[in-house]
């Protein structure tokens, strides 16, 4: 660890020591309503950061309860403590205080869904064995009631040895006050007793822990016994005679996998407990259930899935237009106002052409990006993404993956960064890495600005049958991204990441109404990320490119125009000025590399400058063409159309534009994605491979389209 990081960590430590705050881990099965409850308790007082000392993202929030404030830690959903996926490891390690240097949280807030009590209790009994202060939030009691399920919370608390159980319905807020009241009085919670589910196992583990010495805890011994080869086994194995753990395993589990025996024992208890506390009555099947029964049939479900995707992409374009026109108008007005107020000198050009034209041309895409994120977040919150994974499993199997990979790939349509983090739910490392390599091919929201600009400017608005040609080109680009991703998965799963056939098992949550608060909090998070990028990376690159394109200035006396040229003297001067600028000189150096793709030096420089963040390209084009000879045109699209080679022919021909689009569809122009691949794979090998591979594929794709296209048309 660098010294700087050490200082930062110790400062954080001091801050924590000064204000000791009780910390609770919020833990539960996936889709138990954990995040909704977390949002209800903390509101906007949430932060996402790293565990101190390690680069694992953590999500915490503050719950203000009268005069005390609790820190809640939102952990990924898990079914058991011995899971193998990265997500499950993070949840368990964070809960046991193995991550970072802040130790274990002081207590557990266990979220158990009333609709999935059976699985919830399976996790709960394992958590009770940790013997930490525990409070159970029994969520979704309203949804359970609608299905005819009534759970006696008092009886459940009794079955659990008296630990507090609070029934809540997060949608209506029912029971939240009681839960807050309980959270205030942690010292009064009944401490958990060892549950009766598997006493011989926990007692034997306790004996072994006692024999091994005071520093050995039972939880570690249990994990070591259940999980041969685990971190816990490595830690405790040295404290026992060689082979002793193996002998113990034989005695406890026979020849069967330890976790199979565990599931059998614990689920028996879980089922008995459910039967003791749950009343089930037959209720009239509501219309909603009938509809969902119908649409879950194979063909209607698959049809609905594709209709949903079409609706999403349609909405991204049609709903966003008025908002985008508004932003466009505002940017134009601002440029005019700045030019009038500051004048046309270097400062005026810097503000108008560098800052406003550059950043403005990216901010204009905020509405589209937010609409796209809105859909993805809503699909996630309704539980529909799991259904998509189920429907697409058979297709994914053909490329060597499973339905589990569909969830991150669908999120990639919004942004590859959260998608790559979402691959943590994939248990097998090879499947996970293959999904990580496939995800950046999916058309993310940052590609949209480039697509939208070029398609609107250069693809004719003709209709092909029922469809609009522009829409078809866009759809084709989406398909190209999907094909690129799937073929890449197939390629790496057949070579470097060859392994056993991936497995697929998943709980499918019932459709639920999205929680507006959760949706808005997540949407706001994404808006902040986008605007922060526009204000930092994109701003810096736009200003840098403006500086390189504006200086050095040429004096008018040096300029020898050609009066015979069809272009006005003013245009010729602007073109000559730009060409002898620093950027022009550099661009000329790299032009030969991209000449086979039909690109001139301006596009080549814009593409190179776009490698940190692909949407920057639009900003750079905004800047480059604002200072160049095309500046008379009002819109950026108009300026691109006016761009020409020295011999007067247009730069942006249809084959060249299509090639440029293909390049964009396939290239990895995003430093944030490279960084997240580095973090999630914990090596530089994969990000370097992904970047090189995608650049080569993009270049070759663009080359083929341009060369073949120019010959045919």
């Amino acid at each position, binding site marked *: 660890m660098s010294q700087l990081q050490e200082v930062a960590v110790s400062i954080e430590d001091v801050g924590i020591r000064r204000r000791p705050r009780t910390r609770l881990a919020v833990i539960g099965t996936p889709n138990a309503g954990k995040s909704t409850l977390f949002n209800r308790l903390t509101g906007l007082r949430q932060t996402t950061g790293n565990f101190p000392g390690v680069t694992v993202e953590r999500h915490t929030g503050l719950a203000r309860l009268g005069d005390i404030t609790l820190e809640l830690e939102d952990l990924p959903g898990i079914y058991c403590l011995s899971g193998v996926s990265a997500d499950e490891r993070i949840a368990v390690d964070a809960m046991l205080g193995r991550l970072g240097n802040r130790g274990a949280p002081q207590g557990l807030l266990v979220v158990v869904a009333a609709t999935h009590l059976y*699985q919830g209790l*399976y996790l709960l009994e394992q958590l009770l064995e940790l013997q930490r202060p525990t409070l159970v939030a029994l969520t979704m009691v309203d949804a359970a009631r609608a299905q005819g399920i009534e759970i006696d919370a008092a009886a459940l608390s009794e079955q659990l040895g008296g630990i507090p159980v609070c029934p809540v319905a997060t949608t209506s807020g029912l029971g939240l006050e009681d839960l807050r009241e309980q959270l205030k009085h942690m010292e009064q919670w009944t401490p958990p007793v060892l549950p009766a589910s598997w006493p011989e196992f926990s007692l034997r583990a306790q004996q072994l822990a006692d024999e091994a010495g005071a520093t050995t805890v039972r939880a570690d011994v249990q994990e070591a016994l259940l999980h041969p080869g685990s971190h816990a086994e490595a830690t405790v194995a040295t404290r026992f005679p060689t082979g002793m753990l193996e002998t113990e395993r034989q005695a406890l589990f026979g020849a*069967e996998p330890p976790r199979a025996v565990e599931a059998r024992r614990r689920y028996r208890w879980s089922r008995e407990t459910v039967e003791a506390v749950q009343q089930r009555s037959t209720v009239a099947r509501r219309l909603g259930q009938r509809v969902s029964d119908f649409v879950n*049939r194979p063909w209607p479900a698959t049809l609905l899935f594709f209709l949903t995707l079409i609706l999403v992409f349609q909405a991204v374009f049609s709903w966003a237009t008025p908002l985008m026109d508004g932003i466009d108008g505002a940017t134009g007005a601002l440029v005019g106002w700045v030019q009038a107020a500051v004048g046309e000198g270097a400062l005026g050009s810097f503000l108008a052409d560098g800052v406003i034209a550059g950043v403005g041309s990216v901010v204009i895409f905020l509405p589209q990006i937010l609409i796209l994120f809105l859909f993805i977040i809503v699909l996630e919150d309704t539980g529909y993404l799991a259904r998509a994974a189920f429907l697409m499993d058979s297709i994914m199997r053909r490329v060597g993956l499973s339905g589990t990979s569909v969830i991150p790939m669908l999120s990639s349509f919004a942004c590859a960064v959260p998608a790559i983090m979402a691959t943590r739910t994939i248990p097998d490392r090879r499947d996970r890495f293959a999904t990580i390599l496939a995800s950046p091919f999916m058309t993310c929201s940052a590609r949209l600005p480039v697509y939208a600009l070029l398609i609107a400017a250069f693809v004719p608005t003709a209709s092909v049958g029922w469809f609009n040609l522009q829409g078809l080109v866009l759809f084709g680009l989406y398909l190209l991204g999907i094909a690129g991703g799937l073929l890449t998965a197939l390629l790496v799963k057949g070579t470097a990441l060859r392994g056993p056939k991936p497995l*697929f098992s998943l709980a499918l949550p019932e459709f639920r109404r999205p929680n507006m608060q959760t949706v808005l909090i997540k949407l706001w998070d994404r808006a902040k990320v986008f605007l922060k990028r526009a204000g930092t990376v994109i701003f810096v690159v736009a200003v840098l490119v403006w500086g390189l394109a504006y200086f050095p200035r040429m004096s008018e006396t040096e300029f020898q125009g050609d009066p015979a040229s069809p272009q006005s003297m003013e245009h010729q001067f602007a073109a000559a000025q730009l060409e002898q600028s620093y950027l022009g000189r550099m661009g000329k150096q790299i032009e030969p590399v991209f000449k086979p793709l039909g690109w001139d030096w301006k596009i080549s420089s814009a593409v190179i400058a776009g490698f940190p963040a692909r949407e920057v390209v639009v900003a750079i084009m905004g800047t480059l063409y604002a200072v160049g000879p095309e500046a008379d045109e009002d819109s950026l699209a108009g300026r691109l159309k006016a761009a020409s080679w020295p011999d007067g022919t247009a730069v942006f021909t249809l084959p060249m534009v299509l090639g440029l689009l293909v390049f964009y569809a396939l290239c990895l122009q995003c430093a944030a994605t490279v960084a997240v691949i580095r973090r999630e794979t914990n090596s530089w090998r994969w990000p370097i491979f992904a970047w090189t591979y995608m650049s080569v594929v993009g270049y070759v794709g663009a080359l083929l389209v341009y060369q073949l296209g120019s010959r045919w048309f």
Partner: protein
Amino acid sequence: MTLADLSTGQHARITSIDTSQPGVVRLMVLGLVEGTIVKHLHAAIGGDPLELELMGTALSVRREQARHFEVEPFGPASEIRP
């Protein structure tokens, strides 16, 4: 008879499980253990994976794994389907 052989709407009780097969333990962690009652709800296009109901929860299971769960069906499919 195995879990993979149930027809739509049919109920069955799991009687024995071949725990040595890959992926089976993961399904057991989701609650598919001996003695539980499952209902075959739907399948995806092509008949795989299956959607099963277990204690009120819908689970997605591939046929390949479902084959390792021996079941005892009860009630013909027609009796249970609405």
